């Protein structure tokens, strides 16, 4: 096929495509001219990449549940305020945001859930409970989702061990690959092995030049 024929054919192909496109455009214009506003369309604020980020503040104000235990006999506070705040960093606010209890309650005054959870933490601290006992009490009320990280038990243990196993397995694979590459069956480097048309002297000079450049 000559170049001219190719040009004619490609022009035809393009023109037929463009014709189909613009033909459908004309049909669509006529259809659109008769189109009524879409009765199914509703006035909504759809989700978006940016709104997803503001999901930090999506809220369900009724999500708080009471976490109450009777004070221990002769209760003595086991946690300082700093330790209590650190504990609240481990508890996930249940209003629907992505923050921990401390951060949510000190960030957004419209959230009613994190202050409620904070009050429960305060009462348990005053009741003489330890950090672990308080966390256990919250888990028994809300479930594992109240923790900022999955528990290291049962199926959720998989979350913790998988990245380590994956990296170690990949490291083992790379080491095996490197060992194989360096095994005796690998031909020594030389003009014949490399398939490069150069003398030993030329290769040595190239090698020296490459090393100089890289160092």
């Amino acid at each position: 096929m000559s170049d001219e024929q190719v040009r004619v054919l490609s022009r035809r192909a393009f023109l037929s495509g463009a014709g189909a496109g613009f033909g459908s455009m004309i049909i669509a214009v006529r259809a659109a001219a008769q189109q009524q506003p879409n009765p199914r369309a509703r006035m909504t604020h759809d989700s978006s990449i940016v709104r997803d980020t503001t999901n930090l503040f999506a809220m369900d104000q009724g999500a708080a549940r009471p976490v109450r235990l009777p004070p221990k006999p002769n209760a003595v506070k086991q946690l300082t305020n700093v330790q209590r705040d650190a504990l609240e960093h481990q508890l996930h606010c249940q209003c629907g945001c992505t923050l921990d209890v401390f951060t949510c309650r000190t960030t957004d005054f419209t959230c009613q859930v994190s202050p409620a959870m904070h009050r429960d933490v305060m009462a348990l601290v005053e009741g003489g409970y330890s950090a672990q006992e308080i966390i256990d009490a919250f888990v028994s009320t809300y479930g594992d989702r109240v923790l900022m990280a999955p528990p290291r038990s049962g199926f959720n243990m998989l979350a913790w061990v998988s990245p380590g196993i994956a990296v170690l397995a990949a490291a083992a694979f790379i080491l095996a690959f490197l060992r194989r590459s360096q095994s005796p069956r690998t031909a020594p480097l030389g003009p014949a092995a490399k398939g490069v048309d150069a003398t030993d002297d030329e290769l040595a000079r190239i090698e020296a030049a490459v090393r100089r450049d890289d160092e």
Partner: protein
Amino acid sequence: MILIGELSLWVALLMAAWSATVSFAGGATRRTDLADSGIRGLYATFAMIVLASLGLWTALLTKDFSLEYVAGHISSTMPSVYIFTAFWSGQAGSLLFWALILSMYGSIAIATSRRGNEELIPWATGTISAVLVFFIATTCFKANPFTRLDFIPLDGRGMNPQLQNPGMALHPPNLYLGYVATAIPFAFAIAALFSRRLDAQWLGIVRRWTLLSWFFLTIGIVLGMWWAYVELGWGGYWAWDPVENSSFLPWLTNTAFLHSIMIQEKRGMLRKWNVVLVVMSFLLSIFGTFLTRSGVIESVHSFAQSPVGPWFSTFFFLATGITIYLVATRLRDLEAKAELESMVSREAAFLYNNLLLVGIAFAVFWGTVFPVLSEWVTQNKITVGAPFFNAVNIPLGLLLLALTGIGPLIAWRRASLSNLKRQFATPTATGIITGALLFALGMRAPYVLVAYALCGFVMGTIVQEFYKGMRARQTIHGESVVMAFRHLVARNRRRYGGYIVHAGIVMLFAAFAGMAFKLDNDVTLKTGEAFETTDPYGHKWRFVSQGVSTSEPRDRQVIGVGLDAYRDGKRVGIIRSEKRAYHDAQGNPLFQPITEVGIRTTPGLDTYVVLAGVRNSDTAELRITFNPLVVWVWAGGFVMMIGGLIVMWPQAERRRAQAGYVAVMRPATVGSDPVGA
């Protein structure tokens, strides 16, 4: 114009479908007429998408509230700049924006790569057009920005005020520019696999576009961090939110590829792995969009309710399946042309670097999807938040930082003991001295000490590399320090631009480590009351409440508090934080109330004040946080951007050859491909 835009969208769908069909047919039958028609179809798709975009912009700027998208995202009182950026603030608009960028990138990539790539071009055009078909079809059928309302509201809902921020105006387009750029390397990888032209030919194109993707993702991620820090008010810049994670994943695989590609260029190795990385970056971009669009993260059950979720998952699995098939059937074509000679070589260091980058990517991916998996298996919801990501990623991140310093010090192929001694002495000493100095000053946290010692080590490496290069130029060419620096960078942009990126990474790590010393204070202050505390450096601070004030501008209620701040007894100024509740013309509340954070920034410390609430009209509940070294996050991001620009800057072939990146060896036998690009 709006009607033309609406119709152009449908024509674009036809054009893209045409282009995909004839391009693949042209590739399979080797008919250049079909291939050329496919290319013209791609250009026509771009033109139609431009018209569609102009239609939507016209609708926004003329405030045509009969369109659901316009009424849902802007209001008549919004500043024009945010009306313009509302184009990508919703799902339908962002899908159209994605198609606009992809058709533009695709047209540029094909137009600039045609010469010498005749076998690849039809397949690449077909792949780009097929991806376009998916995005345009999703826009047309599932999220059409031209959908009309059955009534015309007097005013629109407007944009969330938190999004009316310069950072948020620029963050999404940069992320999109980064995400979409991964489609071009993917298209050329698929083209190389289809056509079995898996030599070094496609690498140059793929590297350039991956670099572009990396560059825009870097800017987008840093802008997103800045926006979160100054606008959301929770006191940090990175929350390991699924949306953040989904932008980080392709950045990690892009970074891995930009390192491993050097091994393929220099030694003809890692060919399979590089194809996998290119494909992975694209699929992770699609996956990230799927993740944030489908609602699957909120609950595994909301997936089916999402209009675009099933479409994205189908496309994702289809693209994955096709790629796996292509790689599996072309394994022999992807055999390495050389083998590693030593475990202590730069090639090996790049391999370890890839292991860590992909390891971190896996950990982030795993943590992001695990709640879905756990809910599916155990029927119980769990949270995977910052404690998990920090615990898993900090050790891997520190190892990666160490490799950032080690890699440039080791010679290619095989490092000798004398080479190692000579190269490592100064950087290692710098690292040890940094760590020892900080220990002597009282720093005890092990991870933080290690992080700063490694920062010292890597900076030692970078300075040494520049010093040696400049000294060599001064000796050989007799240049001044400034000219030696200029010529060194200009003549070897990839190498020294890369070191500048590494310097930015060091700044970021130093800033991240600084956050270990973050101090939060939960404070309640009446008017005139003072709060005294000590910052992480040991300086005494005193904050005096200036009282709660309220005001009511046209569209919002504002409640604020000013704190008169003193550091070591010296007044530093007033730091003011506000809560703003926006309402419409009838006084109905719009959106959640938002926080205006008060921030005082110095190189060493940010003083970050958030008004959390007000009691009894004169008592402010505040969080006063000391965030050390935050400004170095933005500075590090800026330095990385500069380094990226230097690396991307076009360099003449002759100079690249001089720099050692075009190491083309003349093959002794016919059929053996040259090494290099």
